């Protein structure tokens, strides 16, 4: 099998916050009835996490699960284990109406790290990123400049952004522009 590479091969930029393409990440779209017992069991088996509440990210021993819409979850695991996770999910959901799709190679992941990481995103997305409004365990699907993206907090001064692989260069460029020294807003810390 050919060697998998991420969209921008780990591109990095250091401004007042750093922007890094994190490399390959296992991502699986799961659609179905999120309230069903089969879904709870499948997510538990695949990641060790519970099915997250609306707009939340649940973290388990083997991966993360993010709430994407009332009938969709995103399972995030290591790239190396993604095929096994897909098999686990498919086996657990086989009885009902559900979809499990490996979308790892259709996505790119960026990390924004640094004191001004909230400002970097706040300049590009129509989202209130203030500490009191954007919860630590929240995922937000929105747009970044002109393309769809989603992000969540990983640490107090770090965010992860996911977007479609086809727009990875665009997203990296706008994040880089937003994080350029001299562009600090000092509004969100």
């Amino acid at each position: 099998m050919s060697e998998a590479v991420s969209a921008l091969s780990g591109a990095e930029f250091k401004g007042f916050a750093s922007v890094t393409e994190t490399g390959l990440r296992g991502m699986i779209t799961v659609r179905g009835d999120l309230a069903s017992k089969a879904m709870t069991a499948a997510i538990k088996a695949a990641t060790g996490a519970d099915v997250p509440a609306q707009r939340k990210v649940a973290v388990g021993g083997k991966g993360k699960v993010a709430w994407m819409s009332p009938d969709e979850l995103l399972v995030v695991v290591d790239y190396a284990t993604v095929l096994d996770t897909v098999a686990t999910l498919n086996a657990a959901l086989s009885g009902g109406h559900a979809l499990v799709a490996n979308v790892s190679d259709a996505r790119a992941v960026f990390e924004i790290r640094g004191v001004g990481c909230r400002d970097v995103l706040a300049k590009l997305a129509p989202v209130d990123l203030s500490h009191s409004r954007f919860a630590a365990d929240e995922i937000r699907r929105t747009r970044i400049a002109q393309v769809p993206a989603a992000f969540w907090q990983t640490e107090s001064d770090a965010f992860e952004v996911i977007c479609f692989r086809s727009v990875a260069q665009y997203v990296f460029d706008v994040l880089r522009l937003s994080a350029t020294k001299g562009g600090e807003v000092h509004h969100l810390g």
Partner: protein
Amino acid sequence: MLTLQCPYCGVWAEETELHAEGEAHLKRFGPESDDADFESYLFMRENPKGVHFERWRHASGCGKFFHAARSTTTLEVFGTYSAQTLEPPKDIKDKISAKYPGWSWREFS
């Protein structure tokens, strides 16, 4: 700038995260239907000054279609509600009645 709350994901999304999808509560007339009905389904739209019901899609968010009730003159939003319905919910109608007594929009009032 409009800010609407998506009833599916609860996000207060501003206009640029959404996509306007035209008028709400259209009744479809397909093949075999009366020519006049089909024409009205295809082309005839409300263009009110005041209370209006629209369909929106949370395009950059959860991707779901929903309905919104608002005033085209003041941009006041009376509420948003699920698209899986045939008429606006009572609480939204009551809210509009409080502000615009005697309002009507297509078959609703």
